[in-house]
């Protein structure tokens, strides 16, 4: 049986799960496609953006990121700025300014931004800098835990060379100091979603595979239960073993998902480039991750995906200068405007322009995601993007200063009409922290609620003022 067709997979529990269809499906089947629940895809950039600021090197850097004026997004307000890469999608994006993170005592701007970005939390240990951990779960994880089928983990994907500052993948948290692991290899992410529906496998072979896995899972589950009954197991051990136990159960009802042929072909050779810090490879990996993210939310495998590019300060990746064809210095050096991971080192000539070129590459990658989500149509002909949100955010406001103020958030999609679109607006509140309210608003848009059943208004640090950014709502 060809995998590109609609299939119905019988879950272990006997439930019949209708699988939605992707772009490659034939028209009659496409008409039967189900619309997934509201979803969120987070696309994270590090190091701030090239915006107007006084350079530490003694000159004023011009504005190169934000639109020229608030209000409706037009070609005139976007041109010349990094966001003009999104011109084609301007009617489906909302650019939000003046989102301010709290200046927690992480001991390092990148730790503060990367770990707070999706958690709205301070550190477990103040001042730990590169050894920091966030003190609560991240929004992407909470969406998965509460809204995914059977509480399956949300997808967490990482592109670029691993390791380095903050240990590499660092934006997604299961709980306090419980950092989640990311898929670095897109093939691994795809295989985990495809389950028993592997490319090229016959229906009979797939059914046998499902039966084998079910039998083994039953056996392993029994062993895990006996382990969990050990009277001297510590709380920490019990928690980790319980997570393992739950993971066995959750994977028994995989949904059949499929990628386009071109993406499948690229997956075959992905081992050769996914771990590289060469910018060309980073973007190839990022786009494959975006293909998989689109597939995953389209077929209802997850309601949330987080895509992290680069480590805590994106210091392992070198992007290519499109004008010279040469690899630039690593992004962190460029953001510092110096050949250094700190405040020392030789100045890099024209570093603010190079930073802008990096911003544009992130914008292009984000556009690719919007392209995919727009091209993927629902049964009523509406683009998949309309039913969820794709959020491009940066965990710093700018480069050398590592500002927690005005961290860029671009929201693509409306989550079924929840968000305004086609505008650039700056939220109020002066310079006070309101980033937690941004996360509340994003969470509410995709279906999260507070304990009272109302809109999610208390995500993140309980010490921060509750609420949402109502001005973002349509």
């Amino acid at each position, binding site marked *: 049986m060809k995998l590109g067709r609609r299939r119905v997979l019988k879950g272990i529990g006997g439930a019949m799960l209708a699988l939605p269809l992707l772009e490659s499906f034939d028209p009659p089947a496409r008409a039967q496609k189900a619309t997934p629940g509201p979803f969120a895809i987070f696309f994270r950039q590090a190091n701030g953006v090239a915006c107007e600021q006084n350079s530490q090197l003694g000159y004023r850097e011009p504005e190169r990121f934000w639109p020229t004026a608030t209000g409706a997004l037009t070609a005139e307000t976007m041109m010349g700025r990094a966001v003009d890469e999104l011109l084609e999608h301007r009617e489906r994006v909302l650019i939000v300014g003046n989102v301010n993170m709290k200046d927690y005592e992480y001991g390092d701007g990148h730790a503060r931004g990367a770990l707070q970005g999706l958690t709205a939390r301070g550190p477990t240990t103040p001042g730990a800098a590169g050894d920091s951990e966030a003190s609560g779960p991240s929004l992407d994880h909470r969406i998965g835990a509460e809204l995914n089928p059977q509480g399956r983990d949300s997808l967490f994907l990482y592109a670029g060379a691993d390791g*380095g500052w903050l240990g590499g993948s660092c934006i997604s948290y299961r709980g306090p*100091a419980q950092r989640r692991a990311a898929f670095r290899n897109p093939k691994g992410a795809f295989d*985990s979603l495809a389950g028993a529906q592997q490319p090229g496998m016959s229906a009979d072979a797939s059914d046998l595979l499902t039966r*084998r896995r079910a039998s083994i899972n039953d*056996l392993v589950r029994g062993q895990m239960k006996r382990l969990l009954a050990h009277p001297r197991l510590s709380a920490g051990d019990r928690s980790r073993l319980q*997570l393992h136990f739950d*993971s066995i159960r959750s994977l028994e009802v995989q949904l059949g998902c499929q990628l386009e042929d071109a993406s499948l072909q690229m997956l075959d050779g992905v081992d050769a480039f996914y771990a590289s810090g060469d910018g060309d490879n980073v973007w190839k990996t990022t786009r494959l991750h975006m293909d998989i993210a689109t597939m995953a939310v389209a077929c209802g495998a997850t309601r949330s995906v987080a895509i992290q590019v680069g480590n805590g300060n994106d210091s392992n990746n070198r992007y290519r200068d499109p004008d010279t064809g040469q690899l630039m210095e690593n992004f962190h050096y460029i953001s510092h405007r110096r050949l250094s991971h700190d405040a020392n080192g030789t100045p890099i000539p024209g570093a603010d322009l190079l930073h802008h070129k990096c911003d544009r590459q992130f914008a292009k990658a984000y556009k690719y995601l919007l392209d995919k989500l727009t091209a993927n149509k629902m049964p009523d002909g509406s683009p998949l993007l309309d039913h969820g949100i794709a959020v491009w955010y940066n965990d710093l406001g700018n480069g050398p200063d590592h500002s927690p103020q005005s961290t860029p958030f671009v929201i693509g999609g409306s989550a079924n009409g929840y968000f305004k679109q086609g505008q650039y607006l700056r939220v109020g509140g002066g310079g006070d922290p309101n980033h937690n309210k941004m996360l509340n608003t994003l969470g509410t848009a995709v279906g999260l609620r507070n304990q009272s059943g109302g809109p999610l208004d208390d995500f993140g640090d309980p010490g921060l003022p509750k609420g949402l950014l109502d001005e973002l709502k349509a």
Partner: protein
Amino acid sequence: MSVPNGANRNFRDVDPFRVRVSCETVSVHTSTLAARIARMLLTLTGVCVLACGGEISVRNDGDSPARGAGNIASISGGPETEPPAPSTRAARLTHPQWENSVRDLFHLGDDTSFSKMLRSDPVQSGFLFDNNSTTLSVDDALWSGYQRAAEQIAEYVTTDASRLNPWLPAVTPGAAPGATAAPPPATATDPEARARGFVEGFGLRAHRRPLTAQERDEYLALFRMGSAMYPGMGGFEAGARLVVEAMLQSPHFLYRLEQSADERAGKIPLTSYEVASRLSFALWNTMPDAALLESAQANRLIESGEVAAQAQRMLADPRAQEVVGHFHDQLFQVGRFESIKPAPGVFPDLPTNFGAEVATEQRRFVRETLFAGQGGFEALITSTDTYVNADLGKLYGIANASSFGSDFRKVTLDASQRRGIFTQLGFLALNATSVNPDPIHRGVFLARRFTCATISAPPAMVPPLPEPMGRTNRETVEAHTQMPGTICASCHASIINPLGFPFESYDAIGRYRTMDNNHPVVTSSDPTIGGQQVHVDNALDLAEALADSAQAHQCYMQHWLEFAYGRAQLPDDAGMIAKLAKLSHEDHQPVLRLITALVTSPAFLNRSTKELP
């Protein structure tokens, strides 16, 4: 330079404890032979060896370090000054441990790479090593990877007779469980007996202990489903394939589990099989071999002598070199050497593969120093030997280095310029900007990793270093970070800079220099080591000061303990760390003996009666 010996040392700010050093205070003058002679005398008369009743006895065996490798500084039946500290009961295998165990289970070559299917583990909370047993977990993503890997491995080892036969357990009557048959495998005429023999024999190796009756029956039931699940295969092979899939997904394979719970004399003794796994994963990073399992089966690993003998055997195996190398790779951040990128405009002649070459140099140095040379921590940080090819030899200023080509050869560096690993190219170039030496990062590295000092992160919005304006690199850093009364000065003036400035005689790629920006370099400083301020004239003095510092030895042994246990040190570890540090610092024990002392100690062979939170 004088270093007071025997002073009380603070051991990490968060967990201070005191170490009483029993030797008399020794004043050490690094420029003379006095310290060396003193150390030699201590070595000759102070080799600590196994002693019953918890006493550390002294045996004058007169062996050289190399010959004395068999004399184990084992501590058995010790007093409760070194109690076992709480540890996890479920230590998930690291991916290298998983890969190695798969390799050894099926007698595969060294080129397997099944673990590529597993998602990477996150680095958490700054734990230096890749084996943090309190955080390694199995989530949806990893479970999926384990599942697919188990299926691929099972197919690989059961669908080709040449790959199947080597690992099949013997099932002839009287064969020792776990023994593998020299090909071809013994065959039982009764299929059920053959299946049972397979399940029990392979199960012992996969679970690293005999199966319980319930486990055996469950696996046998699965085995019998093999023909239906793999209709195209022979019955035995199909059953074996299905059982292999299951055992590779079993928590008893994926974790190093310790279920012992019976308390005895204030401890929980581990079973022989649990000891076998502790030893094997600590010293080889893989599952126990046949000899360890046989010893466990005979219940001999509850005997300190047998444990010591096994530890000696294992440390003589090349796999131990890999583990010791892995420890030092992580401690010295050798994995980051590849990222060293000096500015081409400033260093136009730098070898293109400089990072890889200095990594090779350091790995070779560590291996040869600790194994062939039977060296201790002191040798690591004070030896003038190293291993270089033509490229690196040129940077060290070795006259005939061009003849080395790509071969790495042992050389003795100029003792007036180099001493130990901190004066080698890798450390120096890693801790440099692309154009200048970086005394701040050099100092921070030494303070954190070799004095175990806690240093607060710098405040936000630190302005960049100003331009030198004719000053030396040191003068620029001093002016920027040591202004009296500033928050910067609180750490830089007393802790960081004094540990970094002695290295100003090495440039950003580690070459020796005497001038900086047309001024003579100044390398003297007064670092605080072990709570005592010492004066050093240069990096050579600093290396000696660290070698003479009880705190540096404690810090090094703390890292070893954390690596061996796969967790951060706990208050109950203090006694053990102090004991190991004493063996290293005062008795100048080789690192291999220190490792032996660690893994043969009661703390290692028992569980605490307390559990982790």
